[in-house]
């Protein structure tokens, strides 16, 4: 069945198309170039509308044990946000830590067709996939966490052969059914279990004797040589620490030219100037990002209001427990593998610190030149829920609106930020890069994030409303795999998205060493640690898309 979207303004940066009026044809879930006499089965007139690929969120905590801990911890987050079932949707419960069903529905209603869980613990991967499996409509995938797990750290400490380290990284990606690899407070989650309370970039882990710098470089080189498209996804040392900007700059400068992705960099861009010893380091970070083409970032923008922070970074989260609001929290040490910290938090616009965090995020957005290397995130739900994206897009696209908002926040905070001097307004083309084409390219999703022939027909159609918040909050149409899912911001059909994975090659003989390691130390057998394809496919409940990797080097 051939479908035609007629007369839309196409924003397709992957193919260099910037607002041109073009028709788009869909057949069998793909964008096609039909013969001129092909019969159109259904036509959608979208004249004057803005057409983009479906949105892709490259960093959003949508599934896994820590998200469900947060849901358990915070029933008050959900009360009053329960939605009844409709003929096609199930009951869903929203707000900062939505139910899995709500997350899928709200992403779709916002024009998004994929979201990636960035902190999938190897030991918790099965549950993460179960939860993502219960997240309807959108595609998903997980970044598996390494860098505080005992096996990797003992490889590093024991100066293991680099190819064995790569085998372990690749084995873990297969076992956890991951698309990419993330490191969180490199070595720090483990160090916290040994009662270290901070771990700077060049500070040694007391037990393994390795530094975060060693860990980052090993994983960065490992990912590159394994041919995984997304570079190592780094939640750096010293999250939220005033002065953390120095660590971030040292991390960028120390990357030795290797591709690295620095996530929620806003939380890592704090200086120590001024009376409050808390200031913006955004200008310095942005300059370093602009200069070093091997760096990509996402922001982790802070939005005002109640949220609940969810992180694998148990070391830093334990410190944050002092600011828990409401005053309750969960911190866990997990399986000699990783950890987590779940802490409710309220960002207040009249608070000096919170207002400055907000300003720092916006500064970073406005000062980083290349939209292909910066992605729009709130680190959902850590800076705020993903449902804030339309508001955030308006802040970036509408200087007048931004300045109005600046009037409403703590004014002292603005003295320690350059935000007031920044005139930049993002264009629709740049937004399309930052929310679609860029994440797709960075994550190696070959047929997503663009509207060229052959692409998966994940397409969003927006009214070209000058109020960009209203525009992005409620797309007129959303197609997933060529099927109409959302009309005028409401779901009209529910489908099941796929799970994206990447499978770099590795030497199977590593399982001999892993088998005895698991038998000796773990409470799970290696054979059960691995997730099979069938568990995700589960008689058609889900499906897998294996994204390509480059050839492995050595």
């Amino acid at each position, binding site marked *: 069945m051939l479908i035609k979207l007629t007369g839309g303004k196409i924003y397709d940066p992957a193919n260099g198309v910037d607002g041109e009026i073009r028709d788009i044809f869909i057949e069998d879930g793909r964008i096609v170039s039909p013969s001129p006499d092909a019969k159109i089965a259904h036509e959608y007139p979208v004249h004057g509308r803005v057409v983009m690929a479906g949105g892709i969120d490259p960093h959003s905590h949508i599934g896994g044990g820590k998200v469900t801990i947060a849901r358990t911890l915070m*029933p008050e987050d959900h009360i009053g946000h329960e939605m009844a079932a409709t003929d096609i949707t199930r009951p869903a419960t929203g707000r900062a830590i939505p139910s899995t069903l709500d997350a899928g529905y709200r992403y779709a209603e916002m024009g998004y067709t994929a979201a990636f869980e960035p902190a999938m*613990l190897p030991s918790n991967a099965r549950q993460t996939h179960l*939860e993502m499996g219960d997240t309807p409509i959108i595609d998903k995938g997980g970044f598996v966490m390494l860098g505080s797990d005992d096996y990797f750290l003992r490889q590093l400490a024991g100066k293991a052969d680099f190819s064995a380290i790569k085998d372990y990284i690749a084995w873990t990606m297969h076992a956890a059914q991951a698309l990419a690899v993330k490191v969180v407070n490199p070595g720090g989650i483990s160090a916290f*279990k040994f009662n270290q309370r901070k771990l700077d970039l060049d500070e040694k882990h007391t037990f393994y004797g390795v530094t975060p710098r060693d860990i980052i470089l090993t994983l960065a080189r490992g990912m590159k040589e394994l041919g995984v498209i997304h570079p190592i996804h780094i939640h750096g040392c010293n999250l939220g620490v005033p002065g953390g900007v120095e660590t971030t700059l040292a991390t960028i400068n120390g990357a030795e030219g290797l591709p690295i992705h620095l996530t929620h960099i806003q939380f890592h861009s704090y200086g120590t100037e001024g009376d409050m010893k808390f200031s913006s380091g955004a200008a310095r970070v942005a300059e370093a990002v602009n200069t070093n083409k091997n760096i990509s970032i996402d922001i982790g923008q802070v939005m005002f209001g109640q949220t609940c922070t969810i992180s694998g970074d148990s070391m830093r989260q334990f410190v944050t427990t002092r600011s828990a609001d409401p005053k309750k929290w969960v911190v866990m040490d997990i399986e*000699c593998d990783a950890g987590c910290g779940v802490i409710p938090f309220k960002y207040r616009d009249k608070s000096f610190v919170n207002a400055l965090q907000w300003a720092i995020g916006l500064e970073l957005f406005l000062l980083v030149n290349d939209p292909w290397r910066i992605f729009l995130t709130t680190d959902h739900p850590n800076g705020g829920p993903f449902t804030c994206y339309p508001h955030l897009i308006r802040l970036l696209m509408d200087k007048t609106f931004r300045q109005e908002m600046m009037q409403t926040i703590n004014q002292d905070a603005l003295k320690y930020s350059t935000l007031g001097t920044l005139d930049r307004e993002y264009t629709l083309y740049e937004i399309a890069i930052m929310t679609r084409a860029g994440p797709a390219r960075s994550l190696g999703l070959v047929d997503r994030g663009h509207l060229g022939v052959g692409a998966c027909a994940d397409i969003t159609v927006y009214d070209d409303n000058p109020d960009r918040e209203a525009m992005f909050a409620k797309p007129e149409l959303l197609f997933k795999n060529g099927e109409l899912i959302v009309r005028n911001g409401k779901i009209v059909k529910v489908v099941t998205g796929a799970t994206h994975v990447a499978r770099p090659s590795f030497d199977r003989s590593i399982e001999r060493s892993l088998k005895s390691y698991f038998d000796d130390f773990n*409470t799970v057998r290696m054979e059960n640690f691995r997730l099979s394809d069938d568990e995700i496919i589960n008689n058609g409940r889900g499906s897998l898309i294996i994204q390509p990797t480059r050839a492995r080097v050595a």
Partner: protein
Amino acid sequence: MESEKSRSGANHHENVACPFCGMACDDLDIGPSSNGSLKVLKNGCAKASAGFERALIEPSPQVDGMDVSLDEAVAAAAELIRESRLPVFGGLGTDVDGMRAIMTLAERSGGVVDHALSGDAYRNLRVYQSSGYLTTSLTEARNRADLFIIAGCDINKIHPRFFERIVSPERSMFSESPPKRTVIFLGKGLDQSAAKGERVGDVLTLPCDVNRIGEILDAMRAMDKEATISGNDIGGLPRAAVEDLLARCKAATYGVMVWVPSSFDFPNADLTVQAINAFIKDLNSSQRFAGLSLGGSEGSTSVNAVCTWQSGFPLRVSFASGKADYDPSRYDAGRMIAAKETDLLIWLASYTEALNPPDTDVPTIVLGTPHLSLKRKPKVYIPVGTPGVDHAGTIVRVDSVVSLPLRKLRESKLPPAADVIASIEAAL
């Protein structure tokens, strides 16, 4: 699922995960027994044997005590659910897919979901939702702990392999010659027989009443803040014993306090869980120490997890209004049945014969293992298989971190509960 290896003959299964307690040990070897049933060959325990080695019986579904076909039983169940004004889905001894099916059926029928053991779980959840936790998981405790405090629970009866696997494993990640662990039993009359082995050092007993553990921990917390605690009796223990306990906690490199909420069977037991967690959290300002709550049998951890991620709330949710309505007091299935606030109970119990439905005249549909002993004839009875024995599945372990694949180990006519529930939903 992982293909089954056949090493020492047909139907010999290795690395089998056991669903018969919350620890979900996954290192069992299981083979056929002479009577055509299953036998635990390696790494078993009393609970595993009791569960896996039950004879295979495949009774017929029944409606009003009369044998019927599965289709007829499903149709009768659907009819009852359709007619019900407020069905309660209780028991809920099932796995992830079973609970997924229950959720959609409860949503469609405007029912209430609650696990038979939620009352125990809420001793923890009330604390979770008011002040929170600092906890650890099984592999972490196994390798890292140098002090185990067993707080008021007969852990050896609840998890027969806890000491073998967690307290006294041969090896540790962090030392070739790992130090011995101190084990302290806090509470009267606890079975200490399993606290032995290479890795176990001092074993101490502090025989207080279980309902005074909270008092003792609160006192220790205060003492640690250098507050004055008067008297020579603290929670029924000599002051010196409590001071020694605090000193041992303070000296630990990584202490682990173990409790099981079902063992705190006294009024306001959540305050004891609160005291445990407040003590642990405070210790962590200068050292490392963690809690480890165990129990979680009859699939309760899995079922609560699925309810939480799908509905946004832990168990005790009603869908009567079409929305998820959360109220841990009001939607207590036991209370609702006793108060006759429901007109239909759907009882699911697919693991052990201990999870019998309540003795009630509320019309009941039982989806259960054939080993249940039913005091009253249910309106509809549909025998179902056990996840990890009769069909594949997934179980979430008691620490809420690890989940494990469950395997089909034998051929049986007993259907997975998820399939039966889906058929009922289709027939609504």
